[in-house]
């Protein structure tokens, strides 16, 4: 549950998120995923990172992941440095 910890505060505020999925996604999906940055990792995963306005937007992104049949590995809020 440590991943959700950061959510307990300010869950209605924008935050940075990293969505990890299996397989390499093309850069073209940036527009599809509301401007999230597509980073392909050496282990074959893709990280979608970017600002997410609120929980509703996050769930919308999850739905897109689902609809493309992409295997979802993790969703992590990123602490601002």
């Amino acid at each position, binding site marked *: 549950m440590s991943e959700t910890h950061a959510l307990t505060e300010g869950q209605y505020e924008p935050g940075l998120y990293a969505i990890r999925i299996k*397989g*390499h996604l*093309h*850069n*073209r999906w940036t*527009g599809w995923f509301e401007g999230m940055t597509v980073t392909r990792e050496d282990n074959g995963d893709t990280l979608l990172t970017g600002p997410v306005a609120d929980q509703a937007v996050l769930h919308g992104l999850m739905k*897109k992941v*689902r609809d493309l*049949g992409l295997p979802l590995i993790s969703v992590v809020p990123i602490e601002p440095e």
Partner: protein
Amino acid sequence: MYVFYNRSMSTPILATKLFVPSPRPKAVPRPRLIERLNKGLHGKLTLISAPAGFGKTTLVSEWLAASHTGAVAWLSLDEGDSDLARFLAYLVAALQTIAANLGAGVLSALHSPQPPPTGALLTALLNEIANISDDFILVLDDYHAIDATAVDQALAFLLEHLPSQMHLVITTREDPHLPLTRLRARAQMTELRATDLCFTPAEAAVFLNQVMALDLSAEEVAALEKRTEGWVAALQLAALSLQGRADVARFVKAFAGDNRYIVDYLVEEVLQRQPESVRSFLLQTSILNRLSGPLCNAVTGQNDGTALLDALERGNLFVVPLDDRRYWFRYHRLFADVLAAHVLQEQPAQVPILHQRASAWCADNGLPAAAIRHALAAQDFVRAAGLVELAWPAMDGHFQSATWLGWVRAIPDELVRARPVLSLAYARALLNSGDLEAAEARLRDAERWMETLAAGSERPQAPVTKMIVVDVAQFRTLPASIATARAYQTLARGDVSGSVKYSQRALDLLPEEDHLRRGPAAALLALAHWANGDLEAAYQALAAAMVNFQKIGALHFAISGTYGLGDIRIAQGRLREAVKTYTQTLQLALAQGKPLLRGTADLYLGLSELYREQGDEDAAIHNLLHSEELGEQAGLSDWRYRFCRVQARFKATQDDLAGALDLLDEAERRYRRSPVPDVRPLAAMKTRVWVAQGRLSEAQRWVQERGLSVDDALSYLREFEHITLARVLMTEYSRNHADRAIREAVHLLDRLQQAAEAGGRMGSVIEIALLQALAHQAQGELAPALVALQRALTLAEPEGYVRIFVDEGSPMAALLREAMKQGAAPNYVRRLLAAFGQAEGRTPTTQLLSEPLSERELEVLRLLGTELNGPEIARKLMVSLNTMRTHTKNIYTKLGVNNRQAAARRADELDLL
């Protein structure tokens, strides 16, 4: 026709959503899955839950075509179906493909501005399903598109009470919010999940080498199967990429060694292998939910749409036909998403233009909802605002103002405000939803434009924005429409004289022959007279408005006014005329045949109330049950509210005062402000029940809260409250003999008597006279008591009043016996006293139970001992399945059993029947 309107002329139903997809000509046989599907028919539900592209829909359509001989209803869901009303409308439409008239009443009930509670609708629907003679399957395809708790709950309710002849199949990308654990535990559900649906290596081989005729080696098949993990869509894309390719081995090797998202990789391969014309066609049309040749042409600017769709289908390029004529198609959604992402990346500026073209075509081809969706997607709000404005009259006529509200709310406010016709429509939609306050700003916007126009050249400084009108016909009558909306709003707020002015203005503005627009204004005027206590004027005006509606064929409007006519006659103490009015309208309504017009259930309800007053209990209960049975399907939008009120009076008659209060509470929850005068407010009705329960302090608190006093100015709208106040005071006197209380009560009753006589409210005069008689009696003054009673008897006898006497209980019986001694109206008094006798003699025979069963429960218990099933018992008793279940539950609790057999046994043991 690819678009049809169902018979009730309501929600336009897209027939393509009900189309059972035909199986592919060549397919991989999947006997292991078919067998499980067949076995699953014994349960209630088959859940096929797997990600996109696992061949869920294909499997179901192949199963149905290959091995199922019974009837099938199909419904392909999309995001729009998250609206419960729309979901139910489509559900009924799907069921109607196997039983033509099923749920017609449910449909008409749905299309009201305030749809009735879902539970009642679903019960009615379940009862009808239970009447279907043969087993059938209902498929809900793409259930993941639903994102609404209300729909989930409705479906859970249907499943819980599913008649045995129906089996439900759900395909979805995510597990639905249904009680799956319970269904699993009871073995009522068969599940097929991703691991079941994946192609096994053997199936992959059949698919690649036989269906797609690729002639691959065993190693190549194995490599593809491994890389795709049996994902059907991926194997299909891979096969498409391989067709006609010389370097098969190289492709397989490259693909297997790549870790790109499979669909990305393969769609790119497929797109590369298409001619440029096909490629650009695919990309441009990917924004469409449904494709037809002409629509594609409009979007691409080419004229090869039909030919290309045909070629795509033959080439297996992920287009799915949506009808037998192969006119409408859709892309497989996974494929469409990938294409749309391509377009978004390659030609972002093009996307809104494509949506605009689609919107224009849909608008020209009678698909306003799709036209609005595309205009909003293009963020072309100006276009959207125009379309939404034009859509209002039809949406209002189909009772879809809720959906319409969703559209108008997506449009930036400044665009709405620049449009007087749109602003007024917005106000009316808000009024329909009972939101009188939010409607105010929109009404002001529309009015400001009219004022600006009227000021005209006198005011050279024109407003910053320009006025925009799209629906010119609506604009012409806008001043009258604004006045009518104002009349509605002001009356609902209780400002009677203001409302009269507005209605009058609307009527002055409208030409004589515009019956459709004059009708509502005239009816509002009648309601204002009523609220003012001008009963005869109100009656005449309302009756005239109804005749007008009838003339232009708007019979449902005509029927809806009957309740008002009946109530006015009751206030006037003219019960027989009220009965006549209801009976005549009922004949008129029944002559229309099925589906019954809305308002029919209200007519039975009105009759029930009248027969109850006249002491004809059998007829009263018969009509009440009839009203309940037709219930929400053939009732006006506030039927349930009225039903609860009437039922509460029956409960009170049966001495179930707690039950009466529950019903009044329910009525309170269902109350919403409308222009119909609230002449018997619920809070006062509740107070009368408290008085009967002896809860004097609660009743007194109500008096304080309402600020009531015996010296208040009297008006018709407060009459019921003031009579209630007199009752509270009389109870106070009987409790502690406070002389002040009885003096005040008598004083108030005298004033009320005069006011009611002056207003021609003879119904009230009778009640007041009876209270005067009781007040005198309480003080030991028999002679004046009998004088007052005589006055009541004289007025009441010709109209056949009974309950108004009997409900006053034993003090009234004693008074009547005194009157009898003096020879007053002997036949009538004898009848009344007999009614008292019945009321007293009705106490149930002694039962050996701590909580005895009611008459109704005994009746149900008797039938539980028979072979009849639940729905049959409900029909026999003329109650809803839900009501029947409640009775059964109560019986079980009282008997301490938990099933039918045990209940029958216990009934025997206790000799209850």
